[in-house]
């Protein structure tokens, strides 16, 4: 497989460096996944709690390589006509109407029904040819001139049947369209495929087998601090450390939904807007709704707020 700017995929360290330039701080595992995906020509299935940057990884990869990112958002009921291809029915109908008039000319000189039919057969299946084909994301990714990044987002939201549809694409980088035949990726121009899943249901073994599997957990304090620094550079260092320590404490608590990295970043931005210099219990109480999304969680944390803040201040 060759892709534009593939020198940026030369080794894990290089990938990490280039990601970092784009403010995506990643651990070696993530970089290894991208490295292997490219060199083994295999899709990567990314799992992990919401908000740890699964989708972001694919987007950043596309941006880094300066290639197109084609995205397919999965949802219940997604089928091949929305994911792979659709016939341009309107065009087909219009053309039939128009061609009806010229039918007489075509059939001129044909004697008898069988001869007419034979003559019509000569035209082949013009209505089911590439001209009438509306490519959807998967097919589009295969037909790209240059390699691209294909992001199949939240694959767990789709149905089981759709998963099976994906198998052909993921293992052989080809798609079968009954009326036309098999469409293959250009040699050496296979797309770099990322699938993300939030684990709302178990992905089938067949699909997993065809993918590399990357699990992105919540980052540790050090990594998170670097991420915040990259994304919200204007935040003072002291506040940053306190904030990260606080979030790390929260993740230890028994909450319905623990804050993810995206929430940490939002919170950092909020605190900047409020011109805060350091965390204190009041400030946390006022801004808690930025990081916690359930009332019961907020109530649970509010009771502990002084404690957790103190701990965070000590560590930060």
């Amino acid at each position, binding site marked *: 497989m060759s892709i534009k700017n593939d020198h940026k995929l030369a080794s*894990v360290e290089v990938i990490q460096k280039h990601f970092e330039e784009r403010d995506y701080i990643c651990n*070696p*595992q993530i970089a*290894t*996944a991208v490295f*292997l995906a490219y*060199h*083994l020509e*295999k899709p*990567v*299935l990314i*799992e992990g709690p919401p908000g740890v940057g699964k989708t972001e990884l694919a987007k950043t990869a596309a941006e880094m390589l300066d290639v197109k990112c084609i995205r397919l958002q999965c949802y*219940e*009921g997604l089928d091949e*006509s929305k994911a792979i291809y*659709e*016939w341009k*029915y309107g065009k*087909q*109908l219009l053309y*039939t*109407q128009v061609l009806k008039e010229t039918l007489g000319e075509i059939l001129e000189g044909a004697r008898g029904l069988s001869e007419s039919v034979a003559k019509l057969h000569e035209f082949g299946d013009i209505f089911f040819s590439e001209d009438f084909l509306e490519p959807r994301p998967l097919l589009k990714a295969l037909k790209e001139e240059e390699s691209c990044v294909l992001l199949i987002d939240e694959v767990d939201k789709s*149905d*089981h*049947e759709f998963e099976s549809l994906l198998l052909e694409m993921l293992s052989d980088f080809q798609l079968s369209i009954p009326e036309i035949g098999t469409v293959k990726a250009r040699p050496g121009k296979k797309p770099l495929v990322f699938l993300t899943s939030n684990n709302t*249901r*178990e992905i*089938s*073994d067949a699909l*997993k*087998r065809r*993918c*590399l*599997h*990357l*699990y992105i957990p919540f980052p540790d304090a050090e990594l998170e601090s670097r991420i915040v620094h990259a994304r919200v550079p204007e935040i003072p260092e002291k506040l940053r450390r306190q904030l990260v320590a606080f979030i790390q404490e929260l993740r230890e608590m028994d909450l319905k939904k623990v804050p993810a990295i995206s929430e940490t970043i939002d919170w950092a931005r909020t605190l900047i807007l409020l011109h805060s210099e350091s965390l204190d219990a009041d400030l946390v109480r006022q801004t808690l709704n930025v990081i916690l999304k359930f009332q019961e969680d907020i109530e649970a944390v509010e009771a502990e707020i002084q404690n957790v803040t103190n701990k965070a201040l000590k560590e930060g």
Partner: protein
Amino acid sequence: MDRTLVDFVKVLRTAEINVSPAETLDAMQAMDIVGYSDRNFLKDSLSMVLSKTPEEKEAFNSCFDRYFAFQKFKSDETEPGGDGEGPDQSDDSDFDQQADGQRQSGGKGSGQGMGQAGGSEAIDDENGLQPSSKLGKLLLSGNKTELTIAMAEAGREAEVNQIVVFTQKGLYTRKIMDAMGLKGLQDEIAELQAHGGRPQNQLSGKLKKARDRLREQVRDYVEKQFFLHADESGKQLREELLKKVKLSNLEKRNFKDVQEVVFKMAKKLIAIHSKRRKTYKRGQLDIRKTLRNNMQFDGMFFDLKWKASKVDRPKVMCICDVSGSVSNYSRFLLMFLYSLAEILPKVRSFAFSSDLGEVTRLFEQSNLEDAMARTMRDYGNGSTDYGQMLMDFKRQCMDDVNNKTTIIILGDARNNYGDPKSEILREMYDKSKRVIWLNPEPKMSWTVGDAEMKKYAPCCHQADVCNSLTHLERVVSNLLRSVA
């Protein structure tokens, strides 16, 4: 290295990471690209190719660490440091440490090891004596890589990965030592001692020491192999047993294991059956089909085609006897059914010993253990009265029973000579899709004593013995097949 990888995959499989041959091939490719120089890099890469869930990843990590532990030459070289300065004195005290450092006689890791190995050779040269047996040479050469390889080879020959029980450790240690050429070494030592001279004595002493050290290491190696191979297969054996044992004979301490087994079985069932259950959408025009179908009518939309609209929501009602004798079975049946929430979204469960009560809510809101405990507490005492149960059922929810409902009754049908009220069961039979009676007692005792199976069985579509997890699995699997 391929061979090693295949062995490693075997280890992973015993640790319940399902690695397919295709994935093994992928792993080999990955190894080609990644190389062996960076341990963590290799580990990350293999973990991505071979383990596909967070749990599997955890298992993978521990397997990787254990499996490749004895092969970490690289890390050793930097590790010993001060250790290597005083070689001979520290040797003995090192015995119980990780064996890597002492795999050879004089040396410690190739860095400092070179010097020491050279030193000991110098002495040997002075004495003008060299060991003649193969193993002896290997031991004194200070090349621990070769020694490790020799050990692994011997291990393979002795089929150490077949080890099953702990007591076989000695046997395998011996086998491996023999395969490495212990006999030659022993002969040589004996010969040297018989000879008597000072250099000979020195050499034989050295060889003896080296031999003992080697034995220690081999034992260590066998132990590791035991934990790799046998520990997990022992677990599998236990699980197989648990599946077959009578549920009433299970002891409380096994419950946790059983629960695990049940979840595993449930997962398997989900995988088999979830594909078959299609969720159709209603009322969407299927343009493609319609157009195709109407081509023949000159492109006029004459015969509309809709996306198939079949909604089949299986309803399961589960009535469990929770009186003393049968409570264990009920417990596991409920456990099973609730583990299947993904494909059996509508399970209503009832518990009784005399009065019937619905416990659906309880199971939805709290975890299995708590729900089970509360059910037992609320309904578990009192003598069983099936007639009362059927009457309660009729009053509470006969109206909800329709031709899509499957009713499962679990109980021994021992009615304490009360009125069986089998006519109500008959009514249920007529109204529902299926009535399944699961009886934990063997068929022979179905009619003995106060058991009323004779009256109840004709009013069921299916009456089965069910007293082990395997039975349960079969029943639930059939259930899914018919509702799907």
